[in-house]
């Protein structure tokens, strides 16, 4: 204790005694919950709490174990980087020391889907076309899909939309030479060059999947005449017209044509 300035500051001796009391407080007032906190432990020892095992009948403490609680770093990925090649060890920068355990998000699939969709559909046209909005495609609409691998574009009634992120697919039904034909198309596949709305359903279908259209009673039949009429309005029969000037659905305009 510093006694020199006692004459100048008579209450200064209180400071040291209070300081000592503050140090002792940690030892004197230790409850069960904080029993492990203040103890001198090696710096490399992670934090822990005591888990108490109690006797089921007497409710008395039977034993206690240290349960370690390592610091957990939650990742918050917004964009993900897709690694296409194994990393090269020669040009590597040293990794930083991790502050604790890295806890990834519990549901990675939506983030993965979002990143894949951003890669496969940078303009957002395909996403907008099948969004659950008024402008979006609904079951019952007549669609036409142009395939990149050549061949005639396939048109048909959309029977179902299977929404599965990047794997979203549509099922079209048509009659070719009086035989019912159904085709699945992956919306975000690069092979699907374009999707056009030929005709919208008159009213909203009250089913998610119009499987009843397969029954003869409800079958729409061939949609070739609808396609013909649509082509006429778009003036596709004119040899010099450009498809970009045509008036079609909002999303279909942006859909890529080969």
């Amino acid at each position, binding site marked *: 204790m510093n006694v020199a300035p006692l004459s100048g500051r008579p209450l200064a001796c209180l400071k040291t005694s209070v300081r000592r009391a503050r140090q002792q407080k940690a*030892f004197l007032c*230790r*409850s*069960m919950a904080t*029993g492990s906190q203040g*103890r001198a*432990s*090696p710096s*490399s*020892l*992670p934090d822990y709490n*005591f*888990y*108490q*095992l109690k006797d089921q009948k007497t409710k008395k*403490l039977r*034993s*206690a*174990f*240290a*349960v*370690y*609680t*390592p610091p957990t770093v939650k*990742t918050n*990925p917004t964009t*993900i*980087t*897709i*690694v*296409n*090649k*194994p*990393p090269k*060890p020669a040009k*590597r920068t*040293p990794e*930083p*020391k*991790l502050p604790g*355990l*890295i*806890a*990834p*998000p519990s*549901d*990675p*699939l939506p*983030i*993965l*889907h979002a990143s894949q969709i951003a890669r*496969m559909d940078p303009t957002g046209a395909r996403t907008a076309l099948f969004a659950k909005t008024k402008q979006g495609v609904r079951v019952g609409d007549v669609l036409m899909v142009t395939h990149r*691998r050549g061949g005639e574009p396939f048109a048909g009634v959309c029977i179902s939309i299977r929404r*599965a*992120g*990047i*794997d979203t697919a549509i099922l079209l039904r048509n009659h070719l030479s009086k035989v019912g034909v159904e085709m699945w198309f*992956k919306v975000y*596949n*690069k092979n699907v060059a374009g999707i056009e709305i030929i005709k919208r359903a008159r009213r909203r279908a009250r089913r998610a999947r119009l499987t009843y259209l397969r029954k003869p009673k409800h079958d729409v039949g061939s949609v070739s005449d609808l396609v013909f009429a649509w082509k006429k309005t778009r003036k596709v029969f004119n040899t010099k017209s450009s498809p970009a000037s045509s008036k079609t659905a909002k999303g279909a305009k942006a859909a890529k044509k080969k």
Partner: protein
Amino acid sequence: MPPRLPARSWRQPPLRPFLSPSSQSTTALLRPLLPLTTTRGVKYGWSTLPKRAKPTRFNQVTAGIPAPSTGPAAALKRRERTTPIRTGVLAIKKGMTAFMGKSGARIPCTVLQLDRVQVVANKTRDRNGYWAVQVGLGERAADNVGAPMLGYFEAKGLSPKKKLAEFKVRSKDGLLPVGVQLLPDWFHVGQCVDVRGHARGMGFAGGMKRHGFSGQEASHGNSKNHRTIGTVGPSQGGGSRVYPGKKMPGRMGGQRVTMQNLPVLMVDNELGIVVVKGCVAGPKNSVVMVQDAVKKPPPPAEFVGMTRQVLDERFPDAFEALEAARERHLELKKWRKDKRIEMLLSGENVAESHEVVL
């Protein structure tokens, strides 16, 4: 009742009366009490051969006899080629999706997530008879863990894990420091992995579902046997019996299924995912084991070295933490054994008792 012999008559005469008095004092006095058993050794005849003290000496390498083809060492040697050089990881199957290529290719894939995967222990040849790494996944609340496992994790300095599994490795080079976290970059894109999972249980299934039998025809006189398996073996020429291993109806699924040589399409540390091509057994949120493919060449040595280096850089003081946790565990173990753990928790005489323990 016949008269009993006096107790002194049970005493036997000393066998070796000319021994030194010091040895006589202990052995000779005890000898009458011990049961009479013949001691090992040749008591008669003679031989010029050296003593056959150690029968295993015939199997020594120096004896010119080939190394034994059975036993632990031979088993390890036999499995050397099919044991991966480094450990695998535990992962959670998060579901299937597709990987769309720029050229229009669509690859069905499975998303596996590594949730706080840590090395928990190492199994060594000396102690356990084989080399392996014990890996833990996720986290488990302490009240769902029994006392023995609480002590186990206390000694490791880790929080209780949801799932533990062992991955055998080829040699001690495959062992890892305890406590380090394995992230998806443990694998690289393009390599092949084996994924083990537990298939869904289907219950008792018939031959058509379980083994893909084609069943029987619908008509032509068939009566109530459309999905039965039909005949189960040849007649008299084949011995008039059902051969062992005949595929029959029975319990289907609910067993471990290994999908071999699945290419890794993507790894991402932020999401904690490894995306592999194709399907993996088991429902969503089931735990699977992912390890380097056995039937493909191992990852390049520089990649393996790099992953080890990355672990050391990310967790430089894993060894110190483990040692500190072990010491603490021994202390606490003593407290528990002395029934003084309550004192420790309530903080009575902590400083004093602490020194005593140390």
